[in-house]
């Protein structure tokens, strides 16, 4: 009836309690669905005897078996060793480069940050696959080069070893640590080091007595984050570790799921254990970072002079070059060369055969299409949701504070594999969701949920930088929350939005867990394909398909940069025009005033 509809509309458009609560209620439902439900599914999966959705019983057998099985001790021990070693080496590498980049005058120091940015942005899959090839016994580029130089047929380096595994993980971790350490290092009051020099300590003494101790909160934070990140890692241990007989918790979980028949109870149980461990570490990390900061003591800091190394400087420059080579130059070269291999490791006969094969294969085309869609659409949706969530969390009434905020921390303790597993379980357990099982939709949803935490990092720094007063002013002037969001916030954060879109898309492209768990042989992404070819020993194909991904990413980067440039031109021209008009008006007013007021003369 018209009158009922009108009264309902009026109820929601008036400032009534129901109307104001509605958006928060919707948001809460979304947050719970995205973050809490999968966790609950995991718990359920651990305690049922059959696949979720299939008839079965509640039982603790699977859970108990997973943890009492002595077979769990080795993966647990290997996980802890792997995490400790990677965290330590990653932090050490980062510390060295932070020092070189912020404290020395070596010529190449300006290269360090861009190299680290590239490493940070590059999905782990790139490093795992490319180094898997680079360090391959006998046929990888490294061993091939050694053969050419020394004439010996022995391999000097095999990637499938503890050394190789920790090495690859450390490269990626070092970029995280670098950006964690560089802020405190630059903010450090240089007078503290200069005082040490004036009062009798040499450079080395100052480095160990002053620089390192002052950085210690950041160093500990970096170690902890590296530890947590390594525990969560899947790509690297799966691609490199398993070949070396190294089993970690995440690869064990995947093992349970990829068996036939799949042992979901065991997988879910182990996943829960991992989540519990990580959750504990995340809480510890948050508390630690809240603590002492050594950077806020003292007054204005002077710009201290950087250290000159007239004799040893060349060594530091060489280390920068070597690092860049190892981190992405050699891996990229390996991928490119291998994509032209007919037989992996035979660099004398190169051909386009692999690419021809790929483009003729409808599966590849569909995977490429999927990847592009996920990157573009998935990336956009994720960043949009992230912005809304960040904005809502900031503007939230205190009543909804806890309900909304706590669940968004869950992904930080949830490794990608566990998250994908949870979403798989949720889809299987809820009959209404069955139609999307095995389709691109399930992958898209999983990718969005998995990428939300990272996207929110971007949107947080963008949205939170914008003074609440800007949007408050809009509200007071009459705009609804939605209106102030679209007319004030979005234009202001547009540049960060676009960057966040690109970086999220990049992460989505490199995601391996979702296509492995939620895709199928007929429906997958480039990442999934690359992995499949690699484990099927069709290494050149894996290289070729990954190169396709690289090209796609570079093209998208170009598009993104163009967008940013266009945006800047639009807004600065607008701004410039406004400024000129404003200044003209003020000058005119001043001139008029001067004519009438003798005193000011």
């Amino acid at each position: 009836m018209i009158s009922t509809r009108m009264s309902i509309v009026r109820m929601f458009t008036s400032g009534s309690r129901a109307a104001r609560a509605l958006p928060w209620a919707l948001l809460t439902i979304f947050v719970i669905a995205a973050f809490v439900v999968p966790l609950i599914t995991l718990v359920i999966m651990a305690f049922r005897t059959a696949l979720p959705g299939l008839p079965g019983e509640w039982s603790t057998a699977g859970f108990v078996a997973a943890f009492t099985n002595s077979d769990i001790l080795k993966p647990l021990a290997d996980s802890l060793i792997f995490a400790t070693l990677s965290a330590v080496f990653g932090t050490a590498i980062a510390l060295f480069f932070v020092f070189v980049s912020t404290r020395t005058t070596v010529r190449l120091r300006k290269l360090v940050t861009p190299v680290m940015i590239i490493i940070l942005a590059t999905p782990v899959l790139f490093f795992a696959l490319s180094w898997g090839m680079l360090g391959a016994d006998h046929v990888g580029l490294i061993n091939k080069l050694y053969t050419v130089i020394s004439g010996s047929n022995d391999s000097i380096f095999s990637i499938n070893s503890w050394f190789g595994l920790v090495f690859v993980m450390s490269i990626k971790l070092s970029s995280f640590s670098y950006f964690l350490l560089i802020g405190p290092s630059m903010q450090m009051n240089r007078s503290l080091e200069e005082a040490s020099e004036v009062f009798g300590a040499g450079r080395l003494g100052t480095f160990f007595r002053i620089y390192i101790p002052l950085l210690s909160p950041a160093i500990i934070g970096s170690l902890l984050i590296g530890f947590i990140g390594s525990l969560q890692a899947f790509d690297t241990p799966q691609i490199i570790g398993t070949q070396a007989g190294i089993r970690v918790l995440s690869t064990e979980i995947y093992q349970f799921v990829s068996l036939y028949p799949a042992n979901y109870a065991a997988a879910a149980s182990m996943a829960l254990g991992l989540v519990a461990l990580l959750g504990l570490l995340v809480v510890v990390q948050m508390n630690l970072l809240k603590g002492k900061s050594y950077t806020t003591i003292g007054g204005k800091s002077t710009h201290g002079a950087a250290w000159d190394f007239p004799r040893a400087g060349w060594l530091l420059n060489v280390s920068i070059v070597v690092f860049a080579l190892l981190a992405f130059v050699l891996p990229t070269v390996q991928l490119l060369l291998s994509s032209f291999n007919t037989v992996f490791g035979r660099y004398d006969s190169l051909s386009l055969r692999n690419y021809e094969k790929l483009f003729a294969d409808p599966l590849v085309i569909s995977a490429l299409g999927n990847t592009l869609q996920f990157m573009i659409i998935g990336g956009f949706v994720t960043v949009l949701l992230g912005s809304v969530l960040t904005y809502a969390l900031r503007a939230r009434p205190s009543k909804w504070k806890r309900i909304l905020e706590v669940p968004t921390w869950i992904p930080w303790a949830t490794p990608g594999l566990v998250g994908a597993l949870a979403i798989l379980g949720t889809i299987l357990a809820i009959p209404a969701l069955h139609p999307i099982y095995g389709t691109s939709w399930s992958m898209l949803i999983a990718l969005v949920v998995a990428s939300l935490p990272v996207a929110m990092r971007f949107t947080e720094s963008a949205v939170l930088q914008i003074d609440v007063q800007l949007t408050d002013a809009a509200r007071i002037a009459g705009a609804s929350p939605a209106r102030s969001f679209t007319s004030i916030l979005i234009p202001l954060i547009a540049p960060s939005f676009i960057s966040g879109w690109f970086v999220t898309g990049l992460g989505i492209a490199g995601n391996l867990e979702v296509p492995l768990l939620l895709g199928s042989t007929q429906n997958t992404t480039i990442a999934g394909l690359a992995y499949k070819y690699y484990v099927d020993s069709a290494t050149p194909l894996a290289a070729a398909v990954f190169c396709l991904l690289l090209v796609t990413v570079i093209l998208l980067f170009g598009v993104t940069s163009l967008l940013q440039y266009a945006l800047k031109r639009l807004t600065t021209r607008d701004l410039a025009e406004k400024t000129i008009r404003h200044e003209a008006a003020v000058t005119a007013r001043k001139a008029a005033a001067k004519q009438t007021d003798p005193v000011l003369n």
Partner: protein
Amino acid sequence: MSSISVSHLNKSYGANTVIDDLSINIAEGEFLTLLGPSGCGKTTTLRSIAGLETPDSGEISIGSKVVTSMSTGVVLPPNHRSLGMVFQSYAIWPHLTVFNNVAYPLRRQKVAAKQIESRVMATLASVGLDHAAHRSATLLSGGQQQRVALARAIVSNPEVLLFDEPLSNLDATLRITMRDEIQRVRSLGSTTSVYVTHDQSEAFSLSDRVAIMLDGKIVQLDTPTEVVTNPLTLEISKFLGVENVLTAVVHSVDSSHMVLEVPELGIKLIAPMSREPARVGDAISITIRATSIEIVGKDKALDPNVLHGTIVQTTFLGDAVQYRVAVGTSHVLVRAGAADARPLPEGQPISVQLPVHRLSVFRS
């Protein structure tokens, strides 16, 4: 303690010359202040003496030891120069206790532990912080941190003490307390000291001599009294904060004075003779501090250098009152103590006298 000798120091950053052929000799035990505005090169000079910066050319010696010689490429690192330094931002190490902060120089010199204990505690007692010896440095206030910095600088009996604007991060009252503290510490022993500041009251109250630096050069090197009463140039006068600058032409001269025609005030003033004797017709700049101008009553109306004008602006400054007095086509700033009478209202006619001996004259 040692003397310091700086000769022909030069430093540029790109096209920007920061130190311009600077030379100075600081005697043993002397307290010298480098006084100047931001960017004049005083801090860079101090840091070059410390060894924290390397000049483009020049020589620096502490005592008989050549510590910096760009011609021979010798640059002794700071830790070999036997210095003490107080930094602008205190530079107290937050991860060490107060005791360990002050003990640091002695430890680097490998002094025995028992000696360290006694010397550190004695020095802390001399700055009134012995009770806080085992407190973490992060728990100190700004003033306390600066006192710890002072203690640390003197504990090892260095050859030279350097101060890099140590008081500029402190609030007004604390600044005065710390300045007195530095003076007191100085009276206990006379280490050769170089002090950098842009604050005149610090410079004049602490120093044996003051070197005024402008644009990378030392433009006047004198005792504080000399600098204030006889600034060498108009720039120095302006830097010292003289509020009234008048342009004039020499009307007539005698042996010790000149009569100057001041068009903007519409009168003639009697002034002391300039350093280089001026002749009739020369262009002269006159400066006088606002505090030096006296308000006079009608009985002095015909005395020399008395101006008659109208108050156009009265500014109450708390401990003083500033009057902007319109005279002729220009203004003169007069500052009077607020202790006695109420501030005079705007619009009131007023007579002021510019005492002859308080005028500084410079040839243009």
